[in-house]
């Protein structure tokens, strides 16, 4: 089950959660920051098969990944114990709403989610890339060409981006990311639009798929932390300040590069115009 299908399935669950959010609003009178400090426990969500963001070791059940390292640092800086709840991409937002976790890293900011939870400042940005095979293009303008066939998963962020930037290209809308990848592999498309880390993981797995380019001007998607909506914003403010600090002191960048190895990406694999 891929993430999008899963999310759709979870719509049912979200409807339940929406009706019950009435209850949480009343229940969460005390600020999360106070609760974390008084209990000495930071509760976070993680996904077992979300490498390089999250990964639970098959051998010993230990957690690794880019966001796991961020969680560890956050707990350390707060001086509290870290408690990781195993969850799924589909349930992460519900976990926050249901007061099962205090923060969850790795969410895209979408209008639907903004209705029910709060978001942090961006943790990092991920560039939109094109995995190209047999064509040469380095700018969005060059991709915006009737001779170029671009494969994407329908209805995704990739879809809205190429619809906006390359309306003249032939856009092939397929059901899943893998279907779009298969289209490029089979020569039925010239390029697939993906975010950087996914594109790099794909190339690491199967180099013959194509080359990864970051078309100019660089377009980004941002990854955020999510919070339960609270009246008292002290927890969000704390995490926002903390994230900004980690970006400035280089921890986030180190962390990204270090964890890329989980999906077989070396620092030298990054395109020259890489930013985060």
């Amino acid at each position, binding site marked *: 089950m891929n993430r999008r299908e899963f999310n759709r399935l979870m719509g*049912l*669950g979200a409807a*339940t*959660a929406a009706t*019950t959010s009435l*209850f949480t609003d009343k229940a969460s009178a005390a600020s999360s920051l106070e609760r974390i400090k008084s209990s000495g426990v930071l509760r976070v969500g993680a996904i077992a*098969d979300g490498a390089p963001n999250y990964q639970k070791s*098959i051998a010993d059940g230990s957690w690794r990944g880019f966001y796991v390292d961020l969680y560890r640092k956050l707990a350390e800086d707060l001086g509290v114990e870290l408690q990781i*709840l195993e969850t799924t991409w589909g*349930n992460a937002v519900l976990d926050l709403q249901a007061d099962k976790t205090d923060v969850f890293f790795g969410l895209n900011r979408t209008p639907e989610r903004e209705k029910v939870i709060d978001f942090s400042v961006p943790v990092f940005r991920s560039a939109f890339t094109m995995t190209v095979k047999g064509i040469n293009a380095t700018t969005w303008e060059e991709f915006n060409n009737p001779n170029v066939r671009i494969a994407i998963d329908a209805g995704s962020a990739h879809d809205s981006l190429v619809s906006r930037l390359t309306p003249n290209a032939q856009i092939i809308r397929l059901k899943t990311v893998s279907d779009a990848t298969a289209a490029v592999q089979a020569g039925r498309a010239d390029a697939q639009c993906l975010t950087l880390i996914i594109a790099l993981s794909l190339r690491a797995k199967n180099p013959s798929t194509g080359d990864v380019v970051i078309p100019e001007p660089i377009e980004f998607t941002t990854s955020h932390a999510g919070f339960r909506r609270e009246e008292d914003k002290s927890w969000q403010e704390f995490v926002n300040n903390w994230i900004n600090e980690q970006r400035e002191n280089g921890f986030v960048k180190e962390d990204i590069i270090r964890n890329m190895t989980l999906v077989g990406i070396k620092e030298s694999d990054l395109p020259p115009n890489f930013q985060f």
Partner: protein
Amino acid sequence: MYEWDFSILWNYRWLFLEGLGITIAFTAATVLGGLAVGMTAAFCLLSPFRILRATALAFIEVFRCTPVLVQLIWCYYALPMISGIEMTPVTASVLALSCYGGSFYAEIIRGGIVSIDRGQSEAAAALGMTPALAMRRIILPQALRRMLPALMNQSILQFKNTSLVSVLAVPDLVYQGQIAAHDSFRPLETYTAVAVSYFMILFPLTLLVRHLERRLGKSE
């Protein structure tokens, strides 16, 4: 042409075994829990008190007519918010699946009980047994024998329904299969292995049910 490679599965053998153990433990827990729920609901359905009958009926219909997936999510996320009782994914899953299974068991058990000849409870009453004792000693043993195939069929469904607990990240066989699929980039092989595991457990059980049905069919 896809090149199958089942040898990679060997790397995940512990993961699969762990998942299988959890699936079996879940089935056992939710079959027992479901029988307890179903028995209670069935007795309520047979009760002379209208309020008990109505409550049991409402309970059964709610759980029979909504998807288990939603029930799982509801038990884990919504119930704690309303009741204030915090639950682990495992507790919530056992609760939801027991109630879901129980709503089906209830109908089977009720049907089994009313299928027993009225003369049996009359004879028991005439011997001085209270209704409760007659139920326990005379009616239920006969009814259970009659319900056994239907109960086992429902339990087989229950076994398969446990696969839905993966939605709450409970590491059952399907969840572990998903992890292995993601890790190995070999979803076809891993899901095939998951299916084979389910089949190897359920197929002998369905044979047993069919055998029981024939044997009980003969003796009646």
